[in-house]
């Protein structure tokens, strides 16, 4: 894991205390550090620098709370099997998107094989619960371990190189996992695994239980990823994304920081895989092809890289839109591809860009023609 050819600080600590994190803050916002109180909701309340009243409403913590309450209350509003199925799918997709957002949005590492971790999670949970008869809950630690191992295998050699290599190696990794699942007997080959149990009997309909479990896990994941993005590690990620060499020069152990982002993303993907396996009850290799990885990336890019509310909205749009526009599959993907190019050229910050934590930063900063999120 350590490369002698690269300069490392001798203690191997992630971030030297105090001065580096203050520096990260100062560089990120180009002004003295002035951090909003932690825990103000999914996105920091943006005061005083000209967001519209609508965006202030949706950025407030109460809006986030309202969304979570609404998500949990959905089965009371409409408990139709179809509604719950697409809602569960959408939530799982949200989890994947916030997980990938840690890797791509925060840290600027392009992962094109994110479905691999999704597959690792789903197959680990499925295999342990069907072949070995574990209860689903008990498979979760194993899933986390497997996701971390996967992240290590791919991350260790490639994170030291330019980010371009990571992109294509992850692409290859996605294929390796899918083909391996297709070839092995223990994973059921092309037929996959079926009869995956649910979380247990809580006196509700099975799909309602699964929905609630998913809603709770995904809400926690969204909050966790949002808070990770605002902590010290999150600021280090953004610094690495904006200028890796400067970050390295300032004493950030960029390799470790990138590794942390990659492995965090892997764990999110693995856990989403467990939810997917339980929800579908059957999994097979085609469920984890490149299309998935691309669609998750699309949600992150469209919503706004690094912006948790943006990514959640992007994921909901990408996952629910096909339900409205059934049929024209290939047209849809064609439009997605063109949209990716158009967004990158004309609005690289996405629909809902990340706003910096410091309330009045935009007003006090010197004129800066570059958009806030340029990675």
């Amino acid at each position: 894991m350590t490369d002698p050819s690269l300069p490392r600080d001798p203690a191997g600590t992630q971030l030297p205390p105090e001065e580096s994190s203050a520096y990260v803050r100062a560089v990120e916002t180009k002004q003295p550090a002035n951090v909003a109180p932690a825990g103000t909701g999914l996105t920091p309340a943006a005061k005083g620098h000209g967001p519209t009243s609508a965006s202030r409403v949706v950025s407030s913590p109460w809006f986030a709370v309202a969304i979570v309450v609404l998500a949990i209350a959905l089965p009371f509003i409409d408990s139709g099997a179809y509604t719950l199925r697409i809602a569960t799918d959408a939530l799982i997709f949200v989890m994947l998107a916030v997980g990938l957002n840690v890797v791509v949005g925060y840290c600027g590492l392009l992962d094109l094989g994110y479905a691999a971790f999704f597959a690792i999670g789903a197959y680990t949970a499925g295999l342990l619960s069907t072949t070995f008869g574990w209860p689903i809950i008990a498979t979760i630690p194993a899933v986390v371990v497997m996701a971390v191992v996967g992240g290590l295998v791919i991350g260790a050699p490639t994170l030291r190189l330019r980010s371009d290599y990571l992109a294509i190696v992850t692409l290859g990794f996605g294929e390796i996992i899918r083909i391996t699942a297709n070839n092995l007997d223990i994973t059921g080959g092309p037929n996959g695994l079926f009869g995956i149990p649910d979380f247990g009997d809580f006196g509700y309909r099975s799909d309602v239980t699964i929905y609630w479990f998913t809603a709770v896990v995904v809400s926690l994941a969204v909050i966790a990823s949002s808070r990770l993005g605002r902590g010290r590690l999150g600021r280090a990620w953004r610094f690495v994304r904006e200028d890796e060499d400067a970050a390295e020069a300032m004493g950030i152990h960029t390799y470790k920081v990138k590794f942390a982002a990659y492995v965090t993303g892997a764990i999110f993907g693995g856990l989403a895989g467990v939810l997917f396996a339980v929800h579908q009850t059957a999994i097979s290799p085609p469920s984890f092809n490149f299309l998935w990885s691309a669609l998750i990336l699309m949600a992150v890019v469209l919503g706004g890289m690094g912006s948790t509310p943006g990514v959640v909205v992007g994921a909901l749009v990408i996952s629910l839109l096909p339900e409205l526009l059934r049929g024209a599959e290939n047209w849809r993907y064609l439009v997605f591809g063109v949209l990716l190019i158009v967004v990158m050229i004309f609005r690289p910050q996405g629909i809902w860009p990340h706003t910096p934590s410091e309330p009045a930063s935009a007003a006090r900063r010197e004129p800066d023609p570059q958009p806030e999120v340029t990675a």
Partner: protein
Amino acid sequence: MDYVLQLILNGLFVGTFYALVALGYSMVYGIIKLLNFAHGDIYMLGGFVGFTLLTVGSGALAGGGGIIALVVVMALAMVATGLVGLVLERVAYRPLRSAPRLSVLITAVGASFALEYGVAVGYGPNPRAYPVTVGGGAVHLLGARITYAQLVMMAIAVILMFGLDTLVRRTRSGRAMRAISQDPRACLLMGVNVDQVISRTFFIGSALAGAAGVMAGAYYGKIDFLMGFIIGLKAFTAAVIGGIGNIRGAVLGAIVLGLLESFGTAWLGSQWRDVFAFAFLILFLTVRPTGLLGERVTERV
């Protein structure tokens, strides 16, 4: 012994395919440090352009020899895919030339997606059978079998590669390319028309991929809109093995990869062929990321 020779011949043949695609990858990367994810899809597009031309012109070709018709079609397909590559660079990549690397990579993924599903919309998602396949006789060389078609294709590929090598090493235009790969800003100051040279690079790289696409269609007899995905990955692997940005390296890497795959398949079974190749890519990046012929690249800030 016969068996080993056969494996070597198969590996060389597959390697020439990979080389044609890997060259474009490596050239573009060498000049503007862009991983053109859409490159594999240009190869696919070449296959489809060839398919259309052969279908339209099937009456005229009915009597003629398959090989000659194929060469003509290949030339036309090369022009067509070259132009697509040119347009792609102009529309998708040029506006982002000074943008962060991540933006450009995502754009390239978008371009790949758009090409794949554009073809899926145009031709339908199902595989198409190629109107001309090259069967014919085979020569036996020390007990190993190689068809005439394979020999012709390898010959064409080798001619194209030599042409490219001459172009890059001996002509003015090639010198401009090499200069830009070293320092685009200085080239601008020295009066090199950088945009034009980059366009030309895209044209040449895409044309080579298009040629490979037609060959693949004729050889395997079947094309589909996702066929560029795996080959793009393999070509990248080949370019990395040889040292990305290095043209001779790309050819060497492609042949090494072809041979490795050939022996790996014989050893592990064909269902593991792709896994074997990508595992090798990861291994190579761990051990020698600069490739066989690449020199150590230091990033300048």
